[in-house]
């Protein structure tokens, strides 16, 4: 909101510098977003002059000697001038001898290169008007010669652009801001005067202006008053009013309209003036609009209304969108003689939704939607009527017409001294508290409860709808006492009583592992396009992830994976040749399952080995197993041993991965976690302009899973006896998974080793296909490891067990021992 310092001075003696005012406003909660200083300083010896003659200076090429008329009927002055943007006949500001220009520059009659100069013709900058100092300021509107320059330009003023928070509609007005500043500076503050109106002459019958008001939308308009004024003369506003309105960027229209606007800004109560002659049927009807009802608002646009909007109408049509804007149909113009002045209270949420639906925010709607003073209606109307009678003439025809009633309930709040001390945490003397109450028009009485607690009983004025509990009063006191007076203190620190949440701990570990593996962390957007989702994910899952109100098609769906964002990152970096090849992200992802969406905590990494990559020595290319290794590490950091779970194909659920080079473990819904890893589908990678191998992994878990109780490790005693090892190669059909074969052998080993010795492990160390094997078969070689708790094993006892295991193998379908 723009606040003119001149205008503000009507309500308090503000002998403060701009900096002091800015600081005060800021510290009491009205952030100053800008200060605009304009107008001229007081320049009594600077007048309008006209150049009559211009001749070259006899001794200086760059100077001219001019004859300048500075007062009608007097001899022109001779002035030497160095500018050349003017011509004979131009009118310009002339500083006469004795003038003091901004910056303390004194003008005297003096010789310039031998020619006497009786003053100076000025540029804009020299008189403090703008920053243009290149040439003279040509006064193109040709004010009369001799006019003091201060009369040509408006009074100097300072405009503060102030942010008013939504809880303080009372400060969307000069009076409100003045009250606050007066309270902070402890100055006197004056409301504008409203005098009694003269008795009506009896020449007019008020009913010929307006007979009555019908209220058909009581809920949206609790209180409505209308005042009838006959015989006004609509004409341009007086200059003080024009200047006030212009100073805050408003366009003057005519005296009546300008006065309503002035009062809106002065008191914060929007008013509306109707041309009485344009009200058909002499009756105002406050009703809901009809669906599709049209109105031409004053901004020249046709608006289509809806049933949930309120209008002020006459017998035939809507005249005003209540609280928002009037129509051309009841506008006050130069032909207007009789007016009806509206001063009302509209329900804030109603005005807000109407203004929003119409895309029309006005000074009026802005105040109504935040809530005007329910008891301020009458005062604002009287203030406006006083000004109208003074500047537009006419007479007020009582009585005022009124429907509804002010709904404000009288409120009192009890604030105890201990509560104030406890919530503030530092002492504020009673005297200061009471001064603040008084300055803010909070009537109070200081009392003591029977048990001895001192308190204030505070009456809340109708314009402070934001105050309704003791803590609100604490805020008022802290604010006006000054936040700069809150004393410095020690931080009350206590030991940690709680662990960081599991999600935070997991993400931290993921990051440490991946950064340790030379991965760069990236952050990509959560919202992604539906197209991409369909391309990557099952088409059916796409719908459930859409937001209701996307801003664009590129950002319309929740991300189901971190990988597309990482691929885009790699594409950008590849294009810009930054050399980044390993990236990861941790963040939330969303999976659709049976129509419901599971929010998961995910970590994803991608390693891109470009076909273009060159190194002075060939490196081993990363492959499926690089991904598997990293995903195992990540999983183990959240206490999952992936080897304990079956490993599956991804193919069925997702087309983003390369067939035969990818796998998944777990399931987000059944297990609470899942891991996918391997190579990204090469064709898909190509659509990101990434030619090469993309090794990637995703580990996702629900928050509940991460928060699960993990069993602490159980200690197993160890002994100092060595293990005995035996190797065995088994030939199996090519499609058999090594993991399955290992599990089978493990089982044989366990069953055959009995109690006196244990088979510790079966580890695969070779995998061979090709020559020497039957068609469609492969050979898997394992090391069996045996150990006893109480002795070093002998060859004989190990061989016996190993023979039994071999026998079991020979008895098993699809397994043969390689000779």
């Amino acid at each position: 909101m723009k606040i003119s310092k001149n205008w503000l001075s009507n309500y308090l003696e503000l002998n403060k510098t701009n900096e002091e005012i800015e600081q005060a406003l800021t510290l009491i909660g009205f952030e100053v977003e800008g200060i605009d200083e304009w107008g001229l300083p007081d320049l009594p010896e600077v007048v309008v002059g006209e150049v009559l003659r211009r001749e070259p200076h006899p001794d200086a090429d760059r100077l001219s000697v001019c004859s300048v008329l500075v007062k009608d009927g007097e001899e022109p002055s001779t002035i030497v001038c160095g500018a050349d943007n003017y011509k004979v006949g131009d009118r310009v500001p002339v500083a006469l001898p004795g003038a003091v220009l901004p910056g303390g520059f004194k003008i005297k009659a003096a010789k310039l290169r031998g020619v006497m100069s009786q003053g100076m013709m000025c540029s804009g900058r020299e008189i403090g008007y703008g920053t243009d100092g290149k040439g003279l300021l040509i006064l193109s509107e040709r004010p009369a010669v001799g006019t003091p320059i201060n009369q040509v330009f408006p009074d100097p003023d300072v405009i503060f652009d102030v942010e008013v928070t939504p809880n303080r509609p009372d400060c969307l007005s000069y009076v409100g801001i003045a009250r606050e500043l007066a309270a902070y500076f402890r100055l006197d503050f004056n409301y504008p005067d409203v005098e009694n109106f003269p008795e009506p002459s009896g020449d007019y019958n008020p009913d010929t202006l307006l007979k009555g008001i019908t209220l058909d939308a009581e809920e949206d308009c609790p209180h409505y008053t209308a005042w009838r004024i006959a015989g006004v003369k609509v004409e341009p506003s007086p200059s003080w009013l024009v200047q006030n309105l212009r100073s805050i960027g408003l366009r003057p229209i005519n005296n009546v309209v300008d006065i309503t606007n002035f009062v809106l800004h002065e008191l914060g109560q929007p008013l509306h003036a109707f041309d009485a002659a344009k009200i058909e049927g002499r009756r105002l009807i406050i009703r809901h609009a009809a669906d599709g009802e049209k109105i031409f608002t004053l901004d020249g646009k046709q608006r289509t209304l809806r049933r949930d909007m309120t209008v002020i109408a006459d017998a035939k049509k809507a005249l005003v969108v209540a609280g928002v804007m009037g129509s051309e149909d009841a506008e006050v113009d130069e032909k207007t003689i009789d007016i009806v002045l509206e001063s009302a209270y509209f329900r804030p949420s109603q005005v807000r939704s109407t203004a929003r639906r119409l895309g029309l925010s006005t000074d009026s709607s802005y105040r109504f939607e935040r809530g005007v003073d329910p008891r301020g209606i009458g005062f604002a109307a009287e203030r406006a009527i006083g000004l109208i009678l003074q500047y537009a003439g006419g007479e007020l025809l009582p009585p005022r017409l009124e429907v509804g009633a002010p709904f404000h309930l009288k409120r009192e709040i009890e604030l105890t001294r201990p509560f104030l001390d406890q919530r503030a945490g530092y002492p504020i003397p009673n005297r200061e508290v009471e001064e603040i109450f008084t300055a803010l028009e909070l009537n109070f009485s200081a009392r003591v409860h029977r048990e001895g607690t001192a308190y204030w009983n505070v009456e809340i004025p109708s314009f402070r709808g934001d105050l309704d509990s003791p803590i609100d009063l604490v805020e008022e006191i802290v604010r006006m006492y000054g936040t700069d007076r809150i004393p410095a203190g020690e931080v009350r620190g206590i030991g940690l009583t709680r662990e960081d949440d599991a999600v935070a701990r997991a993400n931290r570990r993921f990051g440490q592992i991946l950064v340790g593996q030379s991965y760069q962390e990236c952050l990509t957007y959560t919202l992604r396009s539906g197209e991409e989702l369909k391309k990557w994910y099952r088409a059916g899952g796409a719908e459930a992830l859409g937001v209701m109100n996307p801003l664009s098609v590129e950002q319309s769906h929740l991300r189901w994976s971190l990988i597309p964002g990482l691929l885009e990152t790699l594409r950008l970096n590849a294009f810009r040749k930054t050399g980044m090849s390993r990236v990861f992200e941790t963040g939330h992802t969303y999976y659709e399952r049976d129509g419901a969406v599971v929010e998961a905590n995910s970590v994803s990494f991608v390693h891109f080995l470009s076909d273009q990559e060159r190194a002075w020595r060939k490196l081993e290319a990363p492959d499926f197993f690089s991904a598997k290794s990293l995903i195992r590490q990540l999983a183990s950091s959240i206490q999952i041993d992936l080897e304990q779970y079956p490993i599956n194909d991804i193919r069925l659920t997702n087309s983003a991965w390369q067939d035969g080079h990818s796998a998944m473990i777990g399931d987000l819904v059944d297990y609470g976690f899942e891991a996918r890893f391997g190579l990204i589908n090469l064709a898909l990678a190509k659509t990101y302009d990434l030619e090469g191998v993309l090794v990637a992994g995703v580990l996702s878990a629900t928050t509940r899973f991460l928060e699960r109780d993990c069993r602490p490790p159980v200690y197993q005693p160890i002994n100092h006896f060595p293990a005995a090892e035996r190797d065995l190669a088994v030939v199996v059909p090519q499609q058999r998974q090594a993991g399955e074969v290992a599990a089978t052998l493990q089982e044989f080993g366990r069953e055959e080793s009995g109690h006196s010795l244990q088979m510790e492990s079966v580890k695969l160390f070779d995998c061979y296909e090709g020559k020497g094997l039957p068609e469609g078969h492969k050979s898997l070689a394992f090391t069996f490891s045996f150990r006893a708790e109480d002795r070093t094993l002998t060859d004989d006892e190990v061989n016996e067990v190993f023979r039994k295991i071999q026998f079991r193998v020979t008895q098993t379908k699809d397994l043969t021992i390689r000779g």
Partner: protein
Amino acid sequence: MEADLQSILEKARAGAPEVSSRPDLETFKASLVGPNGELTKVMKGMKDVSKEDKPRIGKLLNQTKNELEDIFSRLNKVIESNEMAARLGPPVDPSLPVPGFHAGGFHPLTQVREKIISIFQKVGFTIAEGPEVETEYFCFDALNTPSDHPARDAQDTYYFPGKTRFTETTQQKRERYLLRTHTSSVQIRTMMKNEPPIRIISPGRCFRRDTADATHSANFHQVEGLYVDRNVSVKDLKALLDYFIKSLLGPSAQTRFRPHFFPYTEPSFEVDFSASHLGKVGSRWIEIAGCGMVHPSVFESVGYDPEEWSGLAFGMGIERIAMILYGVDDIRYFYQNDHRFLQQFHQ
């Protein structure tokens, strides 16, 4: 005989430098101490030595033997070390780059987040997390935000269609799902689950329905904190944020509290800092955080007695702080992930 021993030793010393491999060494040894070696021959002659000379010659013989053993062992060591070196290949040029080297690192927003968190952890705050898909209740209602508050409008907040269900986000009634606009919702969830005292900090991703530009991003990150206990005061709030700002920006940084308005705190403040030692910042006041004392109606909605408990809450944007700390002028750089940008923050 003495002369023979002397010449064997001289011969051995002269021949040693020629020995460069293990077979050489074996041949060399055989020529001296093998069955037909020269020393062996001399030893065989011992039986012919006179009784009185025997002790002297015997001693001399032993000395010679020992000296030869020394020579062999020296040669053996040299050969062994040559053999090991041969396994490793020629020496490397240590200045060659590591093939395929890639420096990993954390994203600058993660680093700033961790910096903020660690400051608060020192005074007893721990991290609380929550879902990014929230409901109107946790994001607005429980935070004393009226149902027609502009922040709740579909102009500014992303909502989900009525039929979408989220399994990980509990609803209070059947209110709408949305993308959280702040992490204050985590405070509500934490208070509903735990009894006071509470001292948590909740970092996380938030969403506002804004068109992206240099200062607006489709998603952004916040850190919010909450401290609930008996007798928490405005003075505690000021002390905590003074401590935070001095920890983040240096001991000469100044703090200013501007009264402000948030529905969920009362009183509410915006916090400005000035830090003339930060070149890019200068001595201007710059907004860095919002804060206040928890509004009594927030306590009521989570079932705390506002008479018994009081609390303070604060929140700040991680991007904003990163931009201030590093002088980054466009928020979009944080999401573009250009490596030249990211690696400037490697520490």
